């Protein structure tokens, strides 16, 4: 997938993350059972979002590296420089 798409996915993921761990969604996900790896449910919930963030950010970064690499090759081939560097999303 393209870097642009991953920027959007990263944005949406972290907005969902913020919604998922605050009221009212977190109030619905508030049962300590089932224990997963011995941990109470809410803790696993939070930890799962953190792990998901790691995966999304990692995919975002590899998409960026790929496009930056492709852009560099195109530039070397004498073509116009591609604009695949930064998304510049504000926060």
């Amino acid at each position: 997938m393209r870097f642009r798409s991953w920027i959007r996915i990263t944005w949406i993921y972290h907005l969902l993350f913020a919604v998922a761990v605050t009221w009212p969604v977190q109030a619905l996900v508030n049962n300590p059972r089932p224990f997963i790896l011995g941990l109470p449910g809410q803790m696993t919930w939070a930890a799962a979002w953190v792990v998901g963030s790691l995966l999304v950010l990692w995919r975002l970064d590899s998409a960026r590296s790929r496009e930056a690499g492709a852009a560099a090759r195109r530039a070397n081939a004498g073509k116009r420089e591609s604009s695949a560097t930064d998304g510049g999303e504000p926060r």
Partner: protein
Amino acid sequence: MMDRSGLITIIILAYLAITLAVGLVAGRRASRSVQGFVAGDRDFGLLIMYFITGATVFSAFAFLGGPGWAYSRGAAAFYILTYGVLGMAPWYAMAPRVAALGRRFGFVTQAQLLVGRFPSKWLSLLMAILTLAAFVPYITIQMRGAGIVMEAVTDGAIPLWAGAAVAYGIVLVYVLASGVSAIGWTNTLQGVFMLVIAWALGIYLPHRLYGGVGPMFEQILAERPELLSLPGLTGDGDPWTWGGYSTAILASAIGLTMWPHLFMKAFTARDDRTMRRTVVLFPTFQLFLIPVFLIGFAGVLFPEAPDQPDFILPFLILRSELPALVVGLFCAGALSASMSTGDALLHAAASITVADGVQPVRRLSDQAQRTLMRVLVVVVGAAAYIFALNEEFSLVELLLASYGIICQFMPALLSAMYWRRATTAGVLSGLLAGSAVSVFFFLSPDLKPFGVHEGILGLALHLPVLIGVSLAGRPQEAEHVAGYVDVRA
């Protein structure tokens, strides 16, 4: 018992000696300029950036306060698990831009970037004052944490005042000698140390006391079910509000993004790739809170209780008949947590005071700046030390107030980098209005609607003031604005 204390003390001294040696050796590589002292000649690789960031974020608060929260407030502690990633992720986009502006204009502090876009001596002074006000209680907590651990673990052989003095004496020596380079290398050492110790204890203690992590939570659920239900409890043992829990996450995430000492790290990275990778890997550091919480939960059904929840970690360690070697290593881990945050804060406090508080009023030579920074490291350290010895001050409350203020930096800095139409008057009045509201609700917490964090309430006034005043005034010159908003990373 004497042998035990002796062995523990030797381990601690060995650890401190290694830290000092690493800190001093690191400084010999950096150049003797202000850029070298503050920004490490902008030359930090991925490994060091990763541990600097992780070790700086995980302070004595995480190592002692984290277990303390899990122990006394139960599920309320889970907020700490979530906000870190939310605060860090925006840096993937922001860091390369901040770094590009730093290279282009030679910025080494957060306020320089802000004042570069919005030229005002008052804005610079205001940022320096707010930053310093937010830093001193934070440094104080780290110092007291170091002192408490030393006193508890050595059975009072090293009292709090001496423990804090020794640990921070060493910090002063390497920060004065080597500046930010020392912090990079010592934090790498300290970060590795903290990770290993936390995971080892987080798995060991539940097994030793309950026969496993699952059985531990089964017992807690049977005997103290209120601890495993969100939003958990307040410090007094009453149920916490959802408003308080949710906005604690938001305010802390925003605050984390904006802490000046972390912001400055963007000026120290070797390249953008390094910084992006640091952000990508940050969630791995966040997972380190899981064993930290396990340690706290392990204390819940322990027959005895410490005087204060924050002591639960050393308290358990001393009563679980662990070998002296483990106790000594734990002590070093906790000192790492304290010192790795404390050194970065001391260094940042001094750099910021000189760059933003003094330079705009009176120009100094490079040499004079470096000297003044060193003097200020000592002065700020001494001030925090005096607070650390004084039990009267409620530090956690002061720290919460400082988070409220740090939150107010967000609209200002985002405007500087992303919003063309923002004006100096808008940013200055927004910052003043937001900080005033935040301090007001900090002083009268009963007036807070739904228990919402004062930093968020501050932002609720800050944003309309910033936008209103900016739009009412004349826009900045397009060429000037383009230098900041159109910068390519």
